[in-house]
């Protein structure tokens, strides 16, 4: 490794090597299915760890038919977009008011919404389900993303609040002096300035809705509405690991959208997660 100039000599090389081995362990379960998925069952049972003799696609075709990830992707996209549309505006509006219009009443309202952050979703599953059945909201994608948004609003309200607090107050005042009303100040001046917070919320709410399993499991029973993760989970139940090549192909198909998303946006995703975590 001649191009690798170190500042700390041997200890740096050793540490980097250890970290590289650990990273290998992390990606191994994602890479290994590639070795298994192109083989027939017979070839796999004799030479599981050899390179495939030829690239067999039948496992992928079968896995695709079993999981139908394309239908799942469409449903998941609707749920994710719905969650974004229902989470961001209420959170941004409330966060703005709690940052800029402080009074006894808004303080009380702030804590009332903050409480929601500490309530585990599992606590409200039973009444949530009963309520949705009563108003026929279960088994719809609305019925899924509306509660998702409700669970997300407290957190994003806090993020928006601390973001609006960090903006200099003079900006809002300048808009005021120019004759802008309360809502014009918010929409034309403050909200555009909060774009970093909005981008983070977009990414993380999307990922959260994309990954959901528990809520979809309870609220959806119509197979056609199944989200991606529900399809993966029902594949897990219905198809065993005994036909490993097909299973490996399904794992590749299921993981691919998220991995591609991550490769494209990993900087944003990591930055967003940190911004959400480090504040407060």
């Amino acid at each position, binding site marked *: 490794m001649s191009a690798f100039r170190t500042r*700390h000599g041997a*200890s*740096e090389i050793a*540490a980097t090597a250890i*970290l*590289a081995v*650990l*990273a290998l362990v*992390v990606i191994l*379960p*994602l890479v*290994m*299915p590639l070795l298994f998925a192109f083989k027939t069952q017979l070839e796999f049972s004799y030479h*599981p760890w050899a390179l495939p003799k030829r690239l067999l696609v039948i496992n992928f075709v079968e896995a695709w038919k079993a999981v139908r990830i394309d239908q799942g992707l469409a449903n998941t996209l609707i749920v994710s977009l719905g969650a974004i549309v229902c989470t961001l*505006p*209420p959170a941004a*509006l*409330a966060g703005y*008011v709690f940052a800029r219009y402080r009074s006894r009443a*808004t303080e009380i*309202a702030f804590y*009332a*919404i903050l409480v*929601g952050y500490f309530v*585990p*979703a*599992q*606590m*409200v*599953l*039973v*009444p*949530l389900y*009963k*309520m949705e059945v009563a108003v026929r909201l279960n088994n719809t994608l609305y019925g899924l993303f*509306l*509660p998702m948004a*409700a*669970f997300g609003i407290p957190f994003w*309200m806090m993020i928006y609040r601390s973001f609006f607090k960090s903006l200099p107050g003079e900006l*809002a*005042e300048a808009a005021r002096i120019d004759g802008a009303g309360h809502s014009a100040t918010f929409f034309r001046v403050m909200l555009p300035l909060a774009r970093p917070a909005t981008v983070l919320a977009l990414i993380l709410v999307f990922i959260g809705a994309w*990954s959901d399993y*528990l809520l979809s499991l309870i609220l959806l029973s119509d197979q056609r509405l199944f989200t*991606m993760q529900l399809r*993966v*989970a029902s594949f*897990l139940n219905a198809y065993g*690991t*005994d036909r*490993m090549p097909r299973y*490996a192909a399904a794992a590749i198909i299921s*993981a691919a959208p*998220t991995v591609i998303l*991550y490769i494209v946006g*990993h*900087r944003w*995703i*990591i930055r967003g997660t940190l911004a959400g975590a*480090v504040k407060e």
Partner: protein
Amino acid sequence: MSAHDIENHGRGGGRKTRARDWKRGAFVFLCVLPAFLFLAVFLYYPIEETFRISTTKSLGLGPEIYIGLENYRRLLASQEFLAGLLHVFTWAFWSVVIQLPLAFAVAFLLSYYSNRFTGPLKSIFYLANVLPSAITAMLGKFVFAPNYGMIASFAKHIGWKWLGGVDFLGDPRLAFWAVFAVATWAYTGFPIIYLMARIEQMPKELREAAELDGASPWRYARSIVLPDLGYPLRILAVLCTVGSLKLFDLPNMMTTGGPGYATETLGIMLYRRGFIDWDYGLAAAIGVVIFLLSLLMTAAELSIGARREKIA
């Protein structure tokens, strides 16, 4: 308070001021309203309902009959519940003891020796954290499946018969640890990037001074970096503990709580009793237990940490 607020509140009376106050109040009200509506429908009302249903006998579509604390008594008498509770605590304990030191070590090495490999390595470490739990479970089964799984087939390949025959997910002594290993694989990425961000916020002079004094990386990590991470480590410990209370996705998909109750969690019991047996009363009681325990643990861990900080 901005100058505008003072101008509004400083002088009472005046029709203009009152009109402005009214506008301001209406704006505040309209801004908070949507968030409140969402929470009222999907959180406040269900919370109240959970408490109420937990005191009733409520099966499927049948009527709700008030039975006081009977559901809680049933929980305490149930082996499944005690197994779930035990796993909450063992899971929380081992995730704090194993995942956090591991994350600290990786985070420290990544930021101490930051070179052109550490950036991509960091992204790889976080990758598993972004995977939806269904896919994590799928890959976990891929690794641990009997006979054909990654470990079993590799063991056979190199001739380790003793390892090739192990059924990690089917053996009650191993299933918990197999699921725990998958969770460690998936969830250690977050503490790593979180601690890294904290370490990188530390003033550079500290490190320069330590290096001038001839401190080894180990000594620097132990005596300077670690003491500075008290608060983030505490937050991570709370997240681990509350996370183990809510544990559901991975064990439900990998082992459905089995074999026996070997990987049973409170979340799985809530789901099975509530949405497979349709025993709403019992499920609501489990929901209440999860809620109260998570409040208790958050408060306890934050206050213990805070006290220690004061002494130091």
